[in-house]
């Protein structure tokens, strides 16, 4: 078995004057679930289409299972794709839909039907073989599309925002289910979403993209706790941004002065900055807690009950945009009301990046 | 698209455009028999086409019939479409069938029918017969065009006007009709073009005195081989193209056709 299911080497794709993808490199290991996460128009679909073969790169190479497929047409790539609209063939029943890829590969009908039954069992659609796609619920269509893509045992499974057509209540359950099916099938997967919660919940690793570039590839924990740059820090999860100064670099750790407090941060993004240079510290809401020593304080604007926790939004002059947000246990937030003043203590460690404009 | 598909499409477009283009070229041929390619050029066939009495009378008849038939058909069609869309009444399906049936009955049968009907009832075969025949033939297109507009019209606007105390006749006049105007204009234009180009039925119901331009052209082609008809066709083609361009400009081609011609991606 090859060590990598998919490898992209410096892949660039242009549409006229627009460069949809700039030299993207990415590796997906066998069985791994990798998510492309980024705002609309950042090039996620383009990257997926390049891997599928619907488009060819202007520069760079694409490998599937160690073999270059850059010039191989879609139908010879052995990929499995689930489309946003599912793209189930409306004139075929579920079984015929799932068998389509096998029949296209010349598999005899009897053998194909065995594989189809197995795939439908896997996605728990057994018994619905004779239904037409329009007689299925949204979630069932989703699973039929998944079975159709998986039954050919693809080298990689490609999913382009497969949950966006479903309502919120269905999504959560299906996310878990898709992940279980994918794990059982052991298929390497590239998943596209612009929903950070979905990405954090499902992925082995996340590739965060914007403006046609891959900013960071890492596990959900890495991407959340140690964002590689300002964009990732701002896009994944909420953050309160405070202006501070670089105190010094020691090995892999930087010291940051924010007001009276000193915080630690990953040194990598700050290398090359001189001492005293302005930096921005990104503080996750759950790392802020009421009490002293106060890192920041502000007037409570709104208290939003979220079930397991409470989000407290503050007006805070020191923070970028004048806004700060803290995530507190409901107990700690019980006395808070709009208009009261809250002091918050900070964490010992945060993420920090060179300031965007000089203070 | 692969190159061979492009080539095929180009060839098919050439097939479609060829007769009109070739006719336009021949119109300028100086010789009096059809012989391609022309050796010398002249405008004399245009002159003849414009002065030949049958063509002048035919054009005049066509114009009269076209204007009367399209206006009458638009009025009748709008009334029928309104009733069919807004009202439940006995005989609704009969009315719909009667009005739409000329779509599937060959024009020569319709022509023969009106000819025999008028012959039997002893009525004269004048221009009114032609107008009646054309109204029957173009009515389905008007009804369809108006009906499509009515279906896409937001009925809540009418309800709102009624709820504000306007009587139905006033709502029809001040709310429904203005909103229907594009559909009416499209239906009228389509009716006018169909009437002006109608040939088979007109051949049956017209006489030497009431013959329309297409009938006069047909008779000419059967007797003479000179390019007068080519010249007339050239004028016709250019006029039609200008009209289509204008219609597309002001009404949108898809609306005139009564079919939403789908845009690609």
């Amino acid at each position: 078995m090859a060590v990598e299911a998919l490898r992209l080497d410096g892949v660039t794709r242009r549409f006229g004057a627009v460069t949809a993808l700039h030299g993207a490199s990415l590796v997906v290991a066998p069985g791994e679930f990798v998510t492309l996460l980024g705002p609309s128009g950042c090039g996620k679909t383009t990257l997926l289409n390049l891997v599928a073969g619907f488009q060819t790169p202007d520069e760079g190479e694409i490998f599937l299972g160690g073999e270059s497929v850059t010039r191989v047409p879609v139908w010879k790539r052995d990929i499995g794709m689930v489309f946003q609209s599912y793209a189930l063939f409306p004139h075929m029943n579920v079984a015929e839909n799932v068998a389509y890829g096998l029949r296209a590969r010349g598999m005899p009908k009897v053998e194909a039907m065995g594989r189809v039954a197995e795939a439908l069992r896997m996605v728990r659609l057994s018994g619905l073989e004779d239904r037409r796609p329009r007689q299925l619920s949204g979630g069932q269509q989703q699973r039929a599309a998944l079975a159709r893509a998986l039954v050919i045992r693809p080298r990689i499974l490609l999913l382009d925002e497969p949950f966006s057509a479903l309502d919120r209540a269905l999504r959560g359950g299906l996310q878990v289910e898709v992940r279980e099916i994918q794990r059982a099938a052991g298929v390497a997967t590239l998943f596209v979403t612009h929903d950070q919660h979905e990405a954090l919940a499902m992925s082995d690793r996340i590739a965060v993209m914007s403006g046609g570039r891959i900013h960071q590839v890492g596990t959900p924990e890495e991407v959340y706790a140690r964002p590689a740059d300002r964009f990732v820090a701002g896009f994944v999860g909420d953050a309160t941004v405070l202006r501070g100064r670089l105190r010094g670099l020691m090995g892999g750790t930087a010291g940051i002065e924010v007001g009276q407090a000193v915080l630690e941060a990953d040194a990598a993004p700050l290398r090359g900055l001189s001492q005293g240079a302005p930096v921005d510290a990104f503080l996750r809401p759950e790392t802020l807690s009421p009490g002293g020593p106060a890192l920041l304080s502000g007037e409570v604007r709104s208290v939003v009950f979220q079930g397991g926790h409470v989000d407290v939004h503050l007006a805070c002059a020191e923070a970028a945009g004048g806004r700060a947000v803290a995530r507190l246990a409901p107990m700690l937030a019980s006395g808070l009301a709009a208009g009261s003043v809250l002091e918050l203590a900070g964490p010992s460690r945060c993420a920090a990046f060179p300031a965007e404009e000089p203070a | 698209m692969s190159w061979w598909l492009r080539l095929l499409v180009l060839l098919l477009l050439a097939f479609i455009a060829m007769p009109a283009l070739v006719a336009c070229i021949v119109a300028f041929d100086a010789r009096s028999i059809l012989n391609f390619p022309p050796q010398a050029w002249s405008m004399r066939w245009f002159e003849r086409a414009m002065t030949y009495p049958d063509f002048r009378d035919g054009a005049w008849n066509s114009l009269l019939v076209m204007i009367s038939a399209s206006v009458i058909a638009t009025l009748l069609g709008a009334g029928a479409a309104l009733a069919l869309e807004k009202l439940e009444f006995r005989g609704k399906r009969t009315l719909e069938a009667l009005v739409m049936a000329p779509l599937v009955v060959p024009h020569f049968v319709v022509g023969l029918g009106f000819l025999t009907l008028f012959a039997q009832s002893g009525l004269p075969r004048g221009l009114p017969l032609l107008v009646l025949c054309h109204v029957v033939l173009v009515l389905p297109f008007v009804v369809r065009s108006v009906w499509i507009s009515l279906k896409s019209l937001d009925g809540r606007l009418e309800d709102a006007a009624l709820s504000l105390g306007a009587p139905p006749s006033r709502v029809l006049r001040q709310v429904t009709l203005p909103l229907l105007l594009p559909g009416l204009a499209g239906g009228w234009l389509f009716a006018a073009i169909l009437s002006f180009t109608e040939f088979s039925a007109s051949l049956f119901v017209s006489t030497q005195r009431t013959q329309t331009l297409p009938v006069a052209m047909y008779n000419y082609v059967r007797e003479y081989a000179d390019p007068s008809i080519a010249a007339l066709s050239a004028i016709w083609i250019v006029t039609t193209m200008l009209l289509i361009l204008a219609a597309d400009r002001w009404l949108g081609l898809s609306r005139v056709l009564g079919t939403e011609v789908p845009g690609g991606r």
Partner: protein
Amino acid sequence: MAGEKSTALGQGAPGLLRGLALPAWLCGLAFAAALLAVFQYALRAHVPGELEPGGFTLQNFVAQAHPLYIGVFWDTLLLCAGTAILSLLAGYPLAWAILRTRSRLARSMILAIVITPLFLGEIVRTYGWIVVLGNSGFLNAALAWLGLGRAEMLFTTGGVLAALVHVTLPIVVIMLAAGLAHIEPELERAAQSLGATPARGFFTVTLPLSLPGILAAGTTAFAWTFSAFATPQLVGGGKVNMISNLVYQLGFASFNFPFAAALAVSGLALTAVSLAALSLVTRRVEQRL
């Protein structure tokens, strides 16, 4: 795109709307009367030298069993079917191109070229074909220029067929394009992602899904061709005849209007049967989709 339907207006003024529909009723009844006149004539005897028909008889229908007439009926059916099939074959790539051409300008150009003939009328188009197909016409000049000799094209079935296809092509393209537009392009991509070549994807997905549009367009082409008169008359030059030409000849050359009417009635019956058969097939296909 369908708006909210209001029936309040209808309920509020049924009399007004009924009145508006009255002229259309009259017009429809005139049409029905004209058709009845044809049926009635078809059952009357022909009195030679008289325009006024004689007593009631079935002779006009019995006489149609002659091989001459049966031959024309058969030719008409073949021409209608042939035109429908050729129009579909030629129309499909054009409809496809209108939907899938990326450039807006190219798309509008194709659409404009395709629909312009729709507005030219039978005579202008047929005359164009005479100039194209004639013995010293455009195509023969082109053939001679290429050193391929000359070919008989005017007054042949092939020539009539070409001109008839030309008449039906615009409406066929419009109807096919409307049908194809409802097919999601993602389905073709899905087929390819599953290992189907573009050709296999086309034949297993796109084509079956466009079948209703194909049948509708084919039916329309069939009916339109049945109605054709000037094209077979002028391009066929008396050597290729359709029922319409026979009806005209009998009426205006022999003044045998009863027999002409009977032929027209048989023609109507033939179209009605053909169209009914086609709509049956269409319904079957639509049920399967």
